[in-house]
């Protein structure tokens, strides 16, 4: 974002950036930046907390009125209260057994998508939205497409204009979003770590994606290797061999 700030300011538009990684703005030195102590992905802090988000936004915008730059770099002093786990949260029922092997893991993934459907629909009803839809496939179809990859197949892309590896990546994103939205349905507000622990360590979808990563890494297709190595399982969740 530091580079974007430089380009826009150079064209005559005042900019202020939020920073989640302080060393990067110390290197880039954008015109104005507010460093925030939040998790990557949440530059304005906790969801469903308008007063907190407003404080972050206003603290950043107020830097536009300062005359003592360039460069202005300030720190935001509050932590994200939603980073704390909520012990009242109960993980959703998952269909995962002790499946191993591509066929069993794929079947578990498809079954779990069905098990979570009611919770997913509750999520849409309570939040008024879903972030599922990047692949353009309906959830059962995106699960089926990912499952075929987990089975070791290389299914052609049913979406015009999307290569098979690209659609696989988008369908993986949709499976994650569907499962995590279903898991967050209800009145209890789990932390992102709670949701991530459940998805990557307990769910059938997570188990299938760990296996998909390994399968694609063993492929001769360099593009699949690239996607598998970087864009399926978060670095912090990759299982190391024992």
């Amino acid at each position, binding site marked *: 974002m530091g580079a974007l700030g430089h380009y826009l300011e150079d064209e005559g538009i005042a900019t202020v950036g939020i920073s989640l990684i302080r060393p990067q703005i110390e290197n*880039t030195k954008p015109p104005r930046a507010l460093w925030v102590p939040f*998790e990557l992905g949440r530059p304005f802090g906790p969801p469903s907390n308008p007063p907190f988000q407003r404080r972050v936004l206003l603290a950043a915008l107020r830097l536009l009125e300062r005359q003592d730059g360039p460069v202005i770099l300030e720190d935001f002093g509050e932590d994200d209260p939603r980073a704390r786990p909520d012990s009242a949260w109960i993980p959703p029922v998952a269909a995962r057994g002790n499946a191993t092997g591509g066929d069993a893991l794929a079947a578990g993934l498809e079954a779990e998508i069905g098990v979570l459907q009611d919770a997913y629909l509750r999520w849409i009803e309570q*939040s008024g939205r879903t972030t599922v839809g990047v692949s353009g496939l309906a959830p059962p179809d995106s699960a089926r497409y990912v499952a075929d990859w987990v089975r070791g197949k290389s299914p052609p892309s049913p979406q015009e204009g999307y290569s098979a590896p690209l659609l696989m990546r*988008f369908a993986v994103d949709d499976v994650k979003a569907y499962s995590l939205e279903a898991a967050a349905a209800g009145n209890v507000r789990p932390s992102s770590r709670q949701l991530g622990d459940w998805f990557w360590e307990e769910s059938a979808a997570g188990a299938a994606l760990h296996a998909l990563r390994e399968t694609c890494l063993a492929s001769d297709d360099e593009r699949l290797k690239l996607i598998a190595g970087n864009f399926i399982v978060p670095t912090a969740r990759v299982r190391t061999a024992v």
Partner: protein
Amino acid sequence: MTRLTDLPAAQAKRLAEAECPSFETRPWVNGPALSRRRVAIVSSAGLFLRGENPFRGRDADYRAVPSETGPERLLTSHISVNFDRTGLQEDWNVAFPLDRLKELAAEGTIGSVAATHYSFMGASDPLAMEPHARELAGRLKSDQVDSVILAPV
């Protein structure tokens, strides 16, 4: 995980030491009081509108998000899997604070909200973004925007 120090050591080191472009100049634009400014959001969350063109790979261009867009239309195809998406799933304002910006305009804290906001995909090469960012500046000026809040993920 909340801060860089909470990430796995290798990932934190890679992020902290990521190669960033260095610039010989330090551009700086002054402006009127906040209450007279017209503000746009420029995100790097890889945001696009449902049914439109997602970011593929490391596309360096941008997508437009009109101010009247509802949260149900906003999706992300950011290539990175190493940032939290559950916050954005619950409330788009964690990364795209359009509701908060509109509230600040309604109470007069800022002058007005831009007609259109924009998103890049932050894992793209910053140098490849440059022509698109400079072209975007023209669009922003056409909308009378004089200030931008840059929102990463």
